[in-house]
């Protein structure tokens, strides 16, 4: 029964959560409910070491995220370290705390790409979702600064019940802001988003309508920008290869230096995570128990074990299996072959039909 673990492939991407501090309080945030505090955060020099080690392991893409990365005063130093290590750096930001001068300094330090989040097309709706008055106006001003500097620019919109009907307007807004790419991302129900699922879950018809609207925009070539959009798990028939498979392509470093196979992995009880404070990154990737737990296919039970797609979707999302099946080694209920697949659709329908409760804002 026991197959020796496959050798670890070289990772391509590192998600660096520089801080959990964030001025916004979006209810769809997939950060953990137990947010790490400022006093626990890695220093810029620690990050520089992590970036060098990551590049030496084969990582090419670095996502600087959080929380809000701009909440760190040493962000420019961190970006410069990324460039020095040879990594392609992508800043994932809410724009709050970044003025034109600071952005220009980041560009000079070697920042490659900016990804700005928008919460809605209408300012009042956007500020209500973000839990921050005036956020939307600041984001629009920031977008103008990004394009004025000639930085590569993506707009990211997490869609859910309150904003998904405006998807056409959102894509038009991203295009008018000069984005080269727009990501329409459905809320992923981990952390704060899981807590808010009854407020966030769209109805099936909302999802279908949004998908059709985006498809029409693409077909007509209405705007000069690339549109990325995926079917949300709760309404899918096949699971997604979460991050290209557990411990295969990506790794995530938390603000305090814990190395996670994905940003929600700490929702799985019993996994042992290692910190960059105690181990070299390559040692963690190759040997940390949390990475070995679900790497490859040896951990799979039925029906994944005998599935022809086992090495394509890698059994889907372990954190979703944990959240819905109570067992991280179960088949992701997003898969039609999971005994819980029907239940997942029922949960979505129940959440989406009920009167949405008030948001439980992140960190408040």
């Amino acid at each position, binding site marked *: 029964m026991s197959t020796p673990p496959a050798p670890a492939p070289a990772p391509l991407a590192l998600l660096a959560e520089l801080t959990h501090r964030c001025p916004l309080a979006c209810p769809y945030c997939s950060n953990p409910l137990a947010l790490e505090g400022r006093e626990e955060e890695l220093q810029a020099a620690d990050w520089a070491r992590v970036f060098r080690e990551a590049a030496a392991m084969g990582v*090419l893409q670095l996502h600087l995220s959080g929380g809000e990365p701009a909440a760190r005063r040493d962000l420019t130093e961190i970006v410069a370290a990324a460039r020095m290590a040879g990594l392609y750096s992508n800043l994932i930001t809410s724009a709050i705390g970044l003025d034109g001068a600071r952005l220009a300094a980041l560009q000079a330090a070697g920042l490659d790409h900016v990804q700005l989040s928008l919460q809605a097309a209408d300012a009042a709706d956007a500020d209500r979702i973000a839990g921050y008055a005036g956020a939307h106006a600041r984001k629009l001003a920031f977008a103008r600064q990004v394009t004025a500097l000639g930085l590569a620019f993506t707009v990211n919109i997490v869609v859910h019940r309150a904003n998904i009907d405006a998807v056409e307007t959102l894509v038009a807004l991203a295009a008018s802001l000069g984005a080269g790419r727009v990501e329409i991302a459905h809320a992923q129900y981990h952390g704060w988003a899981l807590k808010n699922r009854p407020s966030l879950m769209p109805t099936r018809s909302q999802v279908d309508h949004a998908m059709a609207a985006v498809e029409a925009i693409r077909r007509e070539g209405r705007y*000069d920008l690339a549109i990325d959009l995926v079917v949300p798990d709760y309404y899918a028939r096949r699971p997604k290869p979460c991050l290209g498979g557990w411990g295969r392509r990506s790794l995530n470093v938390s603000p305090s230096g814990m190395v996670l196979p994905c940003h929600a992995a700490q929702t799985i009880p019993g996994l042992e995570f290692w910190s960059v404070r105690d181990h070299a990154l390559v040692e963690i990737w190759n040997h940390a128990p949390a990475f070995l737990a679900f790497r490859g296919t040896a951990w799979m039970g039925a029906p994944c074990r005998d599935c022809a797609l086992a090495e394509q979707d890698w059994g889907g999302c372990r954190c979703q299996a944990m959240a819905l099946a109570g067992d991280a080694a179960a088949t992701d209920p997003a898969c039609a072959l999971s005994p819980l697949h029907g239940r997942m659709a029922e949960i979505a329908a129940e959440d989406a039909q009920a009167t949405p409760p008030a948001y439980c804002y992140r960190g408040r």
Partner: protein
Amino acid sequence: MSSPPAIPARPKLAPGVRLHHDATRQAWVLLAPERVVELEGPAREIVQRCDGRHAPDQIIDALAALYTAARAEIAADVTDLLAELAARRLIV
């Protein structure tokens, strides 16, 4: 944008696109937002000349000098690659 963009007169890498040597995988790649595009064969020699100064004809001449193949054949390869990179918005 209904038709794919034409080959630029003096192609250069689009904003946010960088040529990089991936030492781990022994490959030349283009790094772009959420994308890593592997460059095979003479693609690196072509992309290196996408610097905003060289016209496609000059790139073809340079490649013809590097490789001992008929210019027509090289012209076809270069044109195909530039068209593909333009369509994928990796050059402007």
